[in-house]
């Protein structure tokens, strides 16, 4: 018996793993101290816990702990990476390359930099959601300081070719930043092998707590940043503010767990995803997957159900917590800019659902979710004149709608 809605929105946030909670809680209750207080034992204990956590975060991306700084979350990490690098090197270089399907906080940081006089190139994506490496190469100039391309897209789950991007950037002496909020713990990441210079991590997207994230900043060759938040000079001067020991411990534990279980979890999610997707495909016609199927994390499906209104569908499947886009903007009814960038037409973009599977998703939940979605799509289509017309072989695009 399922008593509460089924949570299928793992790209929006992941529940904090109870094991992570258990590890964190003593730091909220017993071992208090400001980890920056160097002069007494309370502070030392906190500092030791924070450094252990830093090493755990570093390990999952094959970095040195000294290259990891803690932030309040991936939004701050992305802001710091983009603005920090841009500001520091602005005397020599003033061009940044990113991509149209990046998370809002990357795009917004770029917009702010544009206002400050920087030049930004927004690379388009191919219909499968992945960037074209040749276009990337063409976009680079001797004024380019940074390339920022996300590892895994938050709406369509596609994985960008990080190693190839890293190689291109390294050859040209350009820094490579990747927003890996959706990737850490889901796919193997190696900052050395992939030539990544900066990498953003979010705690609450990998079963850790909200309110914490991290930024990897390469030491060799050294990447330098102008801090966004200045003050006590914590985090090697790149990010001031008292660190929250329990939150650091939480993200560290979450990284260690995700790393230990990644292989097994990947296989399990692939099986669940396939089970769900095959059921949908066998029962429903005119269902389209947005984004590449192969180059994709197993925990994400983004599906357009032709002639079904996405918001209506969401209302119809209230027992499921799914979304029609990214959480930050899901309250708006605008079609997703990510889907539009793939070339998905506006009508079709409106019919899409983002379904996220994760650590606590069960087979029973997946079956029930598929059944409910199938039933609701059938119901909505039966009421839809558009569906009837399309069934009758009328090309809806050829219709000249009369203005009211």
């Amino acid at each position: 018996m399922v008593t509460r809605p089924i949570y299928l929105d793992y790209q929006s946030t992941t529940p904090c793993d109870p094991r992570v909670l258990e590890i964190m809680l003593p730091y909220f209750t017993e071992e208090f101290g400001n980890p920056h207080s160097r002069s007494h034992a309370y502070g030392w204990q906190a500092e030791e816990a924070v450094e252990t956590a830093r090493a755990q975060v570093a390990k999952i991306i094959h970095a040195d702990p000294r290259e990891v700084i803690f932030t309040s979350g991936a939004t701050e990490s992305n802001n710091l990476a983009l603005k920090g690098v841009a500001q520091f090197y602005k005397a020599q270089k003033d061009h940044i390359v990113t991509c149209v399907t990046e998370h809002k906080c990357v795009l917004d940081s770029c917009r702010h930099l544009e206002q400050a006089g920087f030049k930004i190139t927004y690379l388009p994506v191919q219909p499968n959601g992945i960037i074209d490496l040749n276009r990337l190469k063409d976009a680079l100039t001797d004024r380019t300081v940074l390339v920022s391309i996300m590892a895994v897209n938050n709406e369509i789950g596609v994985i960008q070719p990080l190693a190839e991007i890293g190689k291109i950037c390294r050859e040209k002496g350009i820094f490579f930043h990747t927003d890996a909020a959706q990737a850490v713990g889901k796919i193997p990441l190696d900052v050395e092998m992939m030539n990544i210079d900066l990498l953003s991590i979010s705690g609450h997207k990998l079963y850790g707590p909200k309110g914490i994230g991290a930024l990897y900043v390469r030491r060799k060759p050294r990447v330098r940043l102008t801090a966004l938040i200045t003050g006590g000079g914590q985090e090697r001067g790149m990010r001031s503010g008292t660190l929250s020991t329990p939150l650091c411990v939480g993200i560290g534990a979450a990284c260690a767990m995700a790393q230990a279980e990644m292989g097994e979890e990947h296989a399990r999610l692939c099986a669940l995803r396939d089970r769900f997707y095959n059921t949908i495909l066998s029962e429903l016609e005119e269902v389209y997957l947005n984004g590449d199927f192969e180059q994709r994390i197993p925990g994400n499906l983004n599906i357009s159900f032709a002639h079904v209104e996405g918001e209506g569908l969401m209302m119809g499947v209230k027992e499921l917590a799914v979304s029609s886009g990214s959480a930050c903007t899901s309250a708006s009814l605008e079609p997703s800019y990510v889907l539009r960038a793939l070339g998905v037409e506006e009508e079709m973009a409106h019919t899409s659902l983002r379904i996220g599977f994760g650590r606590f998703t069960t087979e029973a939940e997946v079956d029930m979710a598929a059944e409910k979605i199938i039933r609701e799509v059938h119901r909505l289509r039966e009421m839809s004149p558009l569906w009837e017309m399309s069934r009758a072989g009328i090309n809806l695009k050829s219709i000249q709608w009369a203005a009211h």
Partner: protein
Amino acid sequence: MDYNASVPLRLCAQNALIETLHQVGNASSVHYAGRKLRSLIDGARHSILQRVGAKRLIFTSGGTEANALALSGFGPVPLLVSAIEHDSVLKSAPNAHHIPVTSEGKIDLEILDKILSSFDKPGLLSLMFVNNETGVIQPLQEATRLAHLKGWKVHTDASQALGHIPLSFETLGVDVMTLSSHKCGGPSGVGALLLKEDVHLKPLIPGGGQEYGMRSGTLSAPLILGFAAALAEALYEEPTAVERLSSFQQKIEEALSEAIVYGKKDARVAHVLCLGMRSISAELQLMAFDLKGIAVSSGAACSSGKMKNSHVLAAMGVSPEESACAIRVSMGWKTREDEVDTFIQAWKNIYAQPMVKEAS
């Protein structure tokens, strides 16, 4: 005895936090999980606003970020800050004009007025409510009035004031105010910036557009609920806490007649004491106190690793030699009288120990 660096988490905050940690969801999502979290966050927001007499706030990752946002959010305007601000204010405003303080650690309103008049266009004044090292209370309400008369906006870092001195955003009249959660017994990693409704700040962290577009990032409901619970309790207990800590403060000052108490002549909060021990360096004192199981600090925690001289004492005209012998004692909701007695005894012992004196 180092509450100004971090305060132990209050039980009520711990409960609120742990309960909320078990909730799933992103407060920006439209489905049940998101709506539930958003309503919890909204409840916490209203509770804080009501208790501090404000109408609008944005949550940040802490006092440091709130200060950074306040100092940069008004754009390229002239900045005026007191010389004794926390580093997070001073470093956010490297080109700011500094207001000097008296030997008692307080700004002089006449001097402030003169400085304000010397600018040809108005800007932003940032003046802390309570100094974190000496506990000296600044004449914020009057300073705000003077600044407003000349068209300036006013920010205050009230991190050290909350729960130690009656505080009303509306009465003080400032435009923006920084609050820190962990300084009032809430979890660290969260803070808030209170704003007048007509204030719009340029975001430091843009993105998903949360918090009126002034601060993006997924909100952490557990931290926010923990913060709200701690703040409510801190304010509820304020009268009794102030009475209790005042008696401790008085006891320490009376018992340690040889100690120099900085800012003694002016109005101070009850929970902080900046104590100088003649000719014994703060480093040695800290080590000696630590051996006796007492945690104190030689200044703000953020800079205590560096053991550099206090900019606050320097601004008060204290010589570097003398200031190197000053420690900060801060107390809080969990401090007991026997701890105070232990501290007093330890201080006397350290002061009386000729070996320590020689070593320094």
